[in-house]
């Protein structure tokens, strides 16, 4: 039983690594270097719905650290941590306390992901001239959230990972 759970973790983290690699190949012209769109959230969203909060949390930590060491640096790890966990927090709360659909939860997560990153950028650079980035990242957050929500929703629907208890 335990092994099966670890296998799932391994599989999802590996998937997250591949997606991070793909995402790293998409140059974002407006981006503050290191800021990501958060497409990797598909894996976290899936873990949250098909498994549980704890699994999503663990996968989130591992993917951020591994991706950070493989493709990133200290700064991008900070961005990912802030984005990843703010996003997960928002999604967990919405899933728990509302009956919103997975796509809406994902959109809220996408926005939160980008807000988290922008807060780090603000603190790091001690600047508040980020209104333009906030605007762009707000809408790209929605767009990424819709995409992630659709993909994640379909996968959750098709893959039945009943948790062994």
């Amino acid at each position, binding site marked *: 039983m335990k092994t099966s759970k670890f296998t799932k973790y391994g599989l999802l983290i590996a998937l997250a690594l591949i997606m991070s690699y793909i995402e790293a190949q998409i*140059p974002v*012209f*407006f*981006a*503050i*270097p*290191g800021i990501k769109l958060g497409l990797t959230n598909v894996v976290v969203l899936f873990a949250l719905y098909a498994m549980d909060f704890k699994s999503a949390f663990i996968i989130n930590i591992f993917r951020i650290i591994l991706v950070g060491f493989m493709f990133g640096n200290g*700064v991008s790890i900070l961005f990912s941590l802030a984005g990843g966990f703010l996003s997960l927090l928002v999604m967990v709360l919405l899933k728990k306390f*509302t*009956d*919103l*659909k997975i*796509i*809406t939860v994902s*959109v*809220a997560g996408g*926005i939160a992901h980008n807000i988290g990153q922008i807060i780090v*950028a603000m603190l*790091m*650079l*001690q*600047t508040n*001239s*980020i*209104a*333009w980035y*906030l*605007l762009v990242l*707000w*809408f790209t957050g*929605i767009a990424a959230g819709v995409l992630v929500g659709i993909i994640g929703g379909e996968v959750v*629907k098709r893959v039945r990972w009943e948790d062994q208890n």
Partner: protein
Amino acid sequence: MKTDKNTIDKTEKKSGGKPVSYKKDLIFIGIFLAVGLILAAVVFLGKKAGNSVTVSVSGKEVISFSLDEDLEYMIEGKDGGKNLLIIKDGKAWIEEANCRDGLCINMGKIDSVGQSGICLPNEVVVSIGSDEVTDEGPDVVVY
């Protein structure tokens, strides 16, 4: 198509019991979009031409220039980082940089208050303001 829809209906009815309503979701998405539009309105309506360019390194303001004066200035960033700032025809941009990613070069030209160009590796922020210019001395201008 038909089978697809049926399966979706079945799964959702199974888990929900009540008929599926997207009302709340639409309201939420609507709110997200509305906030985005307000943000856009604030940014675009509040957009006004700046008259100064401020350079900060590691959070500290280093120097500022008038946007009206054409010049080139080599910014000394963190750890020997260098970014070449160009001000020309009322616009500012980073022309060259020795950072790894070079993203600051691709950020484009800026000329409105609140806009900024950022080089994270070198911890350089170039932002447009409407502040007073602190230094226009020719000794810092590199042509």
